[in-house]
């Protein structure tokens, strides 16, 4: 197999002349140049440089124009043009000088070694190339492929190649001619876009899992005979790790409300751990009190969050032990408890002193147990900061006074109506939901079992 020696200019020119004589070849070249030089003036200059000079319509003049046209084309376009002679025993190839800029090998190196292009084709792209080539030969082209080449220094260059078969008047293939563009920048941009899209899809998938974890773990029904309970959890797009729970026990129930500081799947996992560990602890130690439960839960959560998940999140959490005589003992820092007194129709705010869960391994000195007593008809509202920190268009938070106002106005109604009234007020206030919204409205009905 021999390359076309550069010295044999006449052979090359004859080849170009033959090639260019077919209307198909001229159309192909014009399309190619149109794609690269959309401005008409530039296109003219590249394709028809002879038009700038005086017209010479002699056969020699026409040939000179032809040569000039191809010379210009080959040298000016920022792409590699190539052709291969197809014929029995013929293995001549031609490649334009731009190849050196593209892949670092000189034009001569490509001409001397007709296999060089295949060696430099990225191994992972060879099967694809073979497929494209086989299909193109079968159908007569065009051959179109985006593939990677390895430059002389080893870096990857993405190339978009297009080629066509040029046939003689009897339909026999004469040349394979084509052009190759450097599309590395476009491919890199495409890869970034794909990577971003994949990351976004993964994030969305994670959030969906987190949402399912969070919403599926909250109780569906509340079987506490002395309580009327209505609750709702509405996760934000970026799931915020809200938690609420009702765990019935022989003389009342455990109520829990909290919020993990992080967002997304991790927050959902932490919330799941809180629920599972709390449920297990109150089942295993029925007589446990709120402070002790908080401390035991903290040991588990602190180690899991800090050491296993390697996160620095903590959980605002209040655990309330409700007794059916109306006494409620509680521990752990979360939002203020909102207590509607049915007898006076007034609202009291009860602070939840103490520490956050999982903020520190040993919280024995920090945990405080407090208590209050509910009278029949009194309503306790537990909520997360998605309620109080919901913002309007001016950035103002819904805040405590609005919450208290709604509770004061609706406190005598069924708990579902109180819940829906708060939610409606929050919805009317906020421009968009940035955080999970959780609400639990609990009425002490009085009368023990």
């Amino acid at each position, binding site marked *: 197999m021999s390359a076309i020696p550069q010295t044999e200019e006449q052979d090359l020119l004859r080849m170009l002349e033959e090639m260019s004589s077919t209307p198909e070849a001229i159309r192909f070249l014009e399309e190619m140049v149109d794609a690269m030089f959309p401005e008409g003036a530039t296109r003219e200059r590249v394709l028809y440089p002879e038009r700038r000079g005086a017209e010479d319509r002699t056969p020699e003049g026409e040939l000179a124009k032809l040569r000039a046209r191809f010379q210009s084309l080959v040298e000016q376009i920022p792409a590699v043009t190539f052709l291969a002679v197809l014929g029995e025993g013929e293995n001549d190839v031609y490649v334009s000088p731009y190849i050196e800029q593209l892949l670092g090998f000189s034009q001569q190196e490509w001409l001397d070694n007709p296999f060089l292009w295949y060696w430099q084709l990225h191994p992972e792209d060879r099967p694809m190339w073979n497929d494209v080539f086989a299909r193109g030969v079968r159908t007569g082209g065009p051959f179109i492929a985006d593939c990677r080449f390895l430059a002389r220094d080893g870096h990857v260059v993405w190339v978009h190649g297009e080629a066509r078969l040029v046939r003689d008047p009897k339909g026999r293939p004469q040349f394979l001619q084509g052009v190759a563009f450097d599309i590395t920048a476009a491919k890199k941009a495409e890869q970034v876009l794909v990577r971003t899209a994949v990351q976004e899809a993964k994030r969305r998938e994670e959030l969906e899992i987190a949402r399912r974890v969070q919403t599926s773990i909250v109780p569906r029904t509340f079987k506490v005979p002395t309580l009327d309970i209505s609750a709702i959890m509405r996760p934000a797009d970026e799931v915020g790790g809200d938690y609420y729970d009702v765990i019935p026990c022989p003389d009342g129930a455990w109520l829990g409300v909290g919020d993990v*500081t992080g967002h997304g799947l991790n927050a959902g996992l932490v919330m799941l751990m809180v629920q599972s560990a709390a449920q297990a602890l109150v089942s295993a130690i029925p007589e446990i009190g709120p402070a002790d439960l908080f401390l035991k839960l903290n040991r588990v959560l602190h180690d899991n969050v800090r050491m296993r998940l390697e996160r620095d999140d*903590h959980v605002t959490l209040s655990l309330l032990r409700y007794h059916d005589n109306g006494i409620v003992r509680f521990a752990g820092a979360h*939002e203020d408890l909102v207590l509607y007194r049915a007898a006076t129709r007034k609202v009291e705010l009860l*602070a939840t002193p103490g520490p956050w869960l999982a903020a520190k391994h040993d919280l024995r000195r920090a945990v*405080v147990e407090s208590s209050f007593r509910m009278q029949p008809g009194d309503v306790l509202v537990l909520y997360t900061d998605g309620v109080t920190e919901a913002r309007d268009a001016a950035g103002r938070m819904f805040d405590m006074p609005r919450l208290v106002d709604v509770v004061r106005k609706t406190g005598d109604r069924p708990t579902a109506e109180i819940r829906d009234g708060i939610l409606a007020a929050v919805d009317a206030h906020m421009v968009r939901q940035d955080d999970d919204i959780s609400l639990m409205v609990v009425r002490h009905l009085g009368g023990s079992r």
Partner: protein
Amino acid sequence: MSRRPISLPPTTNRGYTLDAWMEGDRAHVVLGGNVGLDNSEDAGRAIETLRKELVHARVKEATLDLRTLYFLASSGLKLLVAWVTASEHRYPITILTDPNLHWQRRSLSALASLEPDYVRLVEKEAP
């Protein structure tokens, strides 16, 4: 006693202010404005840098004035937790709070409860 400012990373998102300086071996930090979803990352970097600077400077005591901090997102609270519970260099921290700001009353008492020997809350209305 002369004030020596503590250099902090430039803020790219307005909405909050953070000033810090040393007077002898005592650090003074004033964090004000709003630290919410839109600027908590930026503020977090600054607070974390500040925390490390104070460790590096081996401060003996720090005052953290939050009286003009109208809102602090939970991500900011996480940084304060990391600050007060960090064990590499312990020093007393006095946090000046405004009792009229609901979030401060609710959250800063929980923060202080984590380190009762080192963190003290002082209620004082903003100047």
